[in-house]
């Protein structure tokens, strides 16, 4: 055995140590005792949410440059089956009409805190320089699929529109209602920060697996944000807005799933 003790002679009553243990265990268990296990009410959520800021700060601090690229794969890695999720066939009348017209009348609105609000047709988007990437899609549920995506970098659309200095987030408003609500808060939307908005792999995709984007995957246009989870990648995009704050949008937490308890920063 080594000279260092596994076992040391007992000393005076270890009150300070007991206190330390009490504090340690108590701190770890605080969220457990502060609320009931199962109600997961506002108190629990408020405490547990603190971890999200820590995760975001740690990922920003330790994960290298803001432009670190998500892994890309060879064509042979493309999944034979790519699971569609969330809305897969929106029944919103406006969307149904556009779909029936082959999305010829669809136009992407770009507005909010921009110098030059725009309306872009699919042909306009296809005329922009494009990026094609074969990436892995990670759903918050735990599964992954690999697909090929082609589209216009979001950065080029935003640069063309010209962000005003106050702009801090980009919001995506979608055509699909994922949950029926009385106040229209079931309409899908998402927001991302400017670091992700200007990332080279963040594209407005109109093509998937070398074919026009299918309805199940968000036709005519969906977002790809490759370093985040699937729910950030809004499908059926109708309007993009540069905003300074998302507190006033819908239920104020920055996205459809965020409004239902999920993290705004979905990097893990």
């Amino acid at each position: 055995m080594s000279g260092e003790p596994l076992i040391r002679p007992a000393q005076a009553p270890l009150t300070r140590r007991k206190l330390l243990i009490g504090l340690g265990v108590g701190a770890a268990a605080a969220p457990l005792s502060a609320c009931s296990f199962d109600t997961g009410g506002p108190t629990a959520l408020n405490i547990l949410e603190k971890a999200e800021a820590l995760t975001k700060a740690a990922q920003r601090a330790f994960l290298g440059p803001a432009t670190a690229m998500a892994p890309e794969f060879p064509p042979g890695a493309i999944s034979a089956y790519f699971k569609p999720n969330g809305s897969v066939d929106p029944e919103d009348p406006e969307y149904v009409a556009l779909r029936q017209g082959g999305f010829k009348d669809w136009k992407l609105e770009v507005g909010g805190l921009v110098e030059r609000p725009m309306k872009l047709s699919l042909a306009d988007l296809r005329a922009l320089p494009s990026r094609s990437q074969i990436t892995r899609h990670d759903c918050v549920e735990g599964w992954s699929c690999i697909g090929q995506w082609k589209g216009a970098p979001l950065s080029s659309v935003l640069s063309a529109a010209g962000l005003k200095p106050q702009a801090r987030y980009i919001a995506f408003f979608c055509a699909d209602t994922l949950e029926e609500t009385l106040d229209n808060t079931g309409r899908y939307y998402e927001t991302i920060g400017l670091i992700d908005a200007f990332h080279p792999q963040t594209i407005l995709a109109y093509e998937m697996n070398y074919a026009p984007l299918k309805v199940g995957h968000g036709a005519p246009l969906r977002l790809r944000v490759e370093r985040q989870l699937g729910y950030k990648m809004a499908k059926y995009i109708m309007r993009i807005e540069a905003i300074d704050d998302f507190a006033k949008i819908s239920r104020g937490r920055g996205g459809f799933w965020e409004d239902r308890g999920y993290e705004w920063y979905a990097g893990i």
Partner: protein
Amino acid sequence: MTSLSSALPARVAPEGRLVARHSAVVRVCHWVNAVSFVVLLMSGMQIFNASPLLTWAQTTNFERPFFSLSARHDDDGNATAGLTTIFGHSFNTTGVFGASRGDDGSLEERGFPSWATLPSYQDLAMGRRWHFFFAWILVLNGLVYFANLILSRHIRELWPSLADLKAIPHAIVEHVRLRFPSGDEALHYNVLQKLAYLSVVIAFPLLILAGLTMSPAVDAAFPWLLTLFHGRQAARSVHFLLAAYLVLFLIVHLVMVVLSGPINNMRSMITGRYRIKEGQR
């Protein structure tokens, strides 16, 4: 600090002498880890339930997972049986895995049963909140533990010697007979304890790395993690299997705590003091 050989009786009691066994750092880390592990395990099962199947490689093979918890349904879509499928072989695990009773008493499709998950009802968002909050506590606590492990050379208590390894058969026989060391022999970890604790000390960092590999942001910064685990879904499977190993360890650990003197063991992990019984062997 004194060496083992000079460990002196602090007080002579009829039952034997009391010695200080675990340092304060180890004791605090142990209990913080214990609480965190239970929360992470239960919230982890909640998260697993959102996609209750495991595959290898980068992407999910929905058709042929090597492990899945699923339900059989009748024509109306009601769950009628719970199935656990391992390498294509299905076992009926109704009531526990695949399908179990909900609040209203009816059978519901659900990977792990509600009594095992946090929250008990299906809520992936809250499961993730619990998981990542306590993951931070586990990681920070683990950093303190590992710093202590190296700096105090506690690692040398856990590292088995060649003589230890040769004594494995003997140690197994002794354990099967439920004969535990007493006297000075009880001051050291025996080889089975060393191997068990060492495996846990290795399993936790691996499990955390596998968990991080599931993060698309982490993968962008450290793509070698995907190589290490052979893909994201493989990392998810490793994360799950290591958690299962730790559950197995926990069961054996608790059984051994009870069999080898629960009060003495609990006292030594709470106050640090352990009672040595003399000359029984």
